[in-house]
């Protein structure tokens, strides 16, 4: 009798939807809010046409975000909103897929489902359907809001379909790497790595005029290929669909050809003993060594590329743009090239890069605790302070190393391609001066872990998110600089030339991070182990 491999898919689908009832709406609705926000932002600007024209002509914004295509209100909305929306859908769809395939298999939950008479493909199919449907609904909402705002139907539809294609591709990638890798943590890490890697072709494309072949390697910028409201190219969608189907087909093939619980890579036997594991710090180092190396390689790669293309950016910032926005005004102090380097180091070294490393490392404490690894360790004569510190040391030192690598590689690329090696030290200083701000964020995470372990993960990310939102509001001219000064970002901001950085403020940030950490340690010493 032939077995129905898809048996029970609908049951599982309903079950997964229930498990995802809080997280699914977040990533599905976020693109809608992002695009709606951009529409109202641009509608509210009296001189948006001039502003966009100037911004589009500016070499710096061009290098970071690429040209505005088409140069219209619609184009401006997509230019400011589609990249972020695509990233949200990419991460959302792939993480959803991983969550219901590899995570469940890793924890053994999948065996419960499979052992209950469900088909072999039921789980993977349900995960695929949820992620795909999520991408589709998210895209549909974006199309709708564009149409409601009075934009052309064809362009709105195409914008949505492009977004949907990005989501489908990452659904496929998520399902595929869940088959290849054995633990869900590495699977999610690989998604981030793919995204960060795609920043390199994106920047090469932007600097190269915005319409090169490189753009095909950057799914989050695929809207620049289809050009909604401009060229309205529907045909690339077919290519996107084929690209999205390939990983899915491959995933089903692998699913059929491997054992449950394992990956396609066979596991090797490890050592009988390890001389390096002498203390909690040694363990913590061992657990993070790989992560730090991967961060460094990523930083070196992207940083080097950024530095290398910097001299090809024209140096001038137009008077008119400077007069129109506070952002351009502060940037004019730096000039386009240094500005580009400064913004990149700021984003990668502080805002969206090293801070993420720092928080993730501190939160590993929580993981060690909730998985009960901490309990078996702390039952030995090891003080709680020593255990927690061993992770914080890795967070502090690791972030400093990552920033050093970032600065050195940006500086090397920049210096090499411009023939001025003094730029190396400049870039290193730019990068290392981010250390106090990153440490404050690590300190906040440590404090939260010490006192509010159960919600520390969510709160830590909320704080970082809040700082990023303030940054975006400032860039949009909605809040003033005083708001930025409430965040650790404001004291090592990209708009501040390195010789104007306040040593006093940076020292104060270091003190603040030490205080936070200390309070966090006290909290951990005096609370129950969960």
């Amino acid at each position, binding site marked *: 009798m032939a077995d129905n491999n898809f048996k029970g898919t609908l049951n599982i689908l309903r079950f997964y939807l229930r498990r995802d009832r809080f997280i699914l709406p977040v990533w599905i609705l976020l693109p809608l809010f992002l695009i709606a926000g951009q529409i109202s932002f641009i509608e509210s600007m009296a001189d948006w046409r001039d502003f966009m024209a100037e911004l589009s002509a500016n070499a710096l914004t061009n290098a970071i975000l690429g040209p505005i295509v088409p140069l219209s209100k619609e184009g401006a909305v997509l230019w400011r909103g589609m990249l972020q929306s695509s990233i949200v859908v990419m991460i959302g769809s792939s993480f959803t897929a991983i969550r219901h395939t590899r995570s469940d298999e890793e924890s053994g939950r999948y065996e419960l489902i499979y052992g209950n008479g469900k088909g072999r493909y039921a789980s993977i199919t349900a995960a695929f359907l949820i992620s795909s449907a999520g991408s589709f609904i998210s895209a549909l909402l974006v199309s709708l809001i564009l149409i409601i705002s009075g934009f052309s139907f064809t362009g709105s539809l195409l914008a949505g379909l492009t977004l949907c294609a990005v989501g489908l591709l990452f659904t496929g990638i998520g399902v595929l790497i869940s088959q290849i890798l054995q633990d869900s943590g590495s699977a999610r890490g690989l998604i981030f790595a793919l995204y960060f890697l795609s920043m390199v072709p994106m920047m090469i494309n932007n600097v190269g005029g915005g319409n090169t072949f490189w753009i095909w390697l950057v799914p989050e910028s695929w809207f620049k290929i289809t050009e909604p409201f401009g060229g309205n190219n529907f045909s690339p969608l077919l290519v996107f669909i084929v690209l999205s189907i390939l990983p899915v087909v491959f995933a089903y093939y692998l699913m059929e050809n491997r054992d449950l619980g394992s990956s396609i890579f066979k596991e090797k036997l*490890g050592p*009988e003993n390890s001389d390096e*594991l002498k203390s909690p710090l040694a363990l913590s180092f061992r657990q993070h060594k790989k992560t730090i190396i991967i961060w460094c390689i990523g930083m070196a790669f992207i940083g080097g590329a950024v530095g290398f293309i910097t001299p090809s950016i024209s140096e001038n910032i137009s008077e008119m743009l400077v007069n129109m926005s506070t952002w351009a005004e502060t940037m004019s102090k730096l000039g386009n090239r240094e500005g580009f380097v400064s913004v990149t180091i700021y984003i990668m070294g502080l805002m969206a890069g090293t801070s993420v490393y720092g928080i993730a490392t501190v939160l590993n404490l929580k993981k060690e605790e909730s998985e009960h690894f901490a309990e078996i360790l702390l*039952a030995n004569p*090891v003080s709680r302070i020593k255990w927690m510190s061993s992770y914080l040391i890795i967070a502090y030192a690791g972030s400093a190393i990552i920033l050093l690598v970032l600065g050195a590689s940006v500086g090397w690329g920049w210096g090499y391609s411009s023939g001025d090696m003094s730029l190396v030290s400049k870039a290193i200083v730019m990068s290392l001066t981010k250390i106090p701000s990153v440490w404050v964020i690590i300190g906040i995470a440590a404090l939260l872990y010490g006192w509010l372990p159960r919600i520390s993960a969510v709160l830590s990310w909320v704080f970082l998110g809040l700082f990023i939102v303030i940054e975006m509001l400032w860039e949009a001219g909605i809040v003033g600089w005083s708001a930025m000064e409430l965040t650790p970002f404001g004291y090592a901001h990209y708009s501040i030339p390195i010789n104007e950085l306040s040593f006093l403020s940076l020292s104060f940030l270091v003190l603040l991070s030490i205080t936070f950490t200390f309070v966090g340690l006290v909290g951990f010493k*005096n609370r129950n182990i969960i």
Partner: protein
Amino acid sequence: MNAIEINKLTKSFGKQKALDGVDLTVKEGEIYGFIGPNGAGKSTTIRILLGMLRKDTGDVRLLGGNPWNDAVKLHEHIAYVPGDVTLWPNLTGGEVINFLGRLHGNVDSVKQKELIETFQLDIRKKCKSYSKGNRQKVALIAALASNAKMLILDEPTSGLDPLMELIFQDYIHKAKKEGKTVFLSSHILAEVEAVCDKIGIIRQGKIVESGTLDELRHLTRTTLTVELKSDLDLNKLVGIHDISHDGGKVRFSADAEYLDQIISKLSTSGIKSLTAEPPTLEELFMRHYGKNQGIMSHNTAHKELK
């Protein structure tokens, strides 16, 4: 000296009362069996002893020290096996055993090797590929190899096969000979019967029974199976329960304090054969399930007897 002294210990998690006045004493060199249904407070008690949880009220002394304040110092003398062992997935079993040994600082490396061999653990495998039983072995080997004065074991053999279970019991007997104190929380009553000197039964956060197995037996009923020469209406006798007939034999349980009376009545009817079974720990234990006692009477095995 007492290794563990607990007086009126309470601990709540929010509204839920996990421990409701626990009193418990373990003498040095004693093997103490700590039994009770799921959720009765066994692990909470152990985690307070280890300084993982802070007590609400009451007194707790462990090896003469305060388990919360002196945790680090006390842990030098304690080896612990958690009930549900989870281990760092990317380390091998050997690495974990070694690492825990180094952290503990006081480990007999010869014994460690011996334990790895007797428990037949492949220490080169990564922990993520271990079964529950194998993870349990890793923690057991690390704990049994240490020279700690005291072993605190929270359901240490769940997931072990019967052969490994025997090896474990053997090591507990050895530990007793070495003068170690063992605090063993367990669901496997045969294991507790086999190794423990003293037993405490915890239920809903309170110790409901404690003492040696013999002492506990006095508190409960003995099961008798008799074949009598002439008929006797057993229902008229005081202290007899659960009468069932099986061919010519009658089976019933008798209260300890009426045993005397019952036997003399039986002998007047002439006894052909008689077997007496002391109450098993299981029967003792079942008495404390309270609400769940119904399960016993619905149990098919019991129905057959009636």
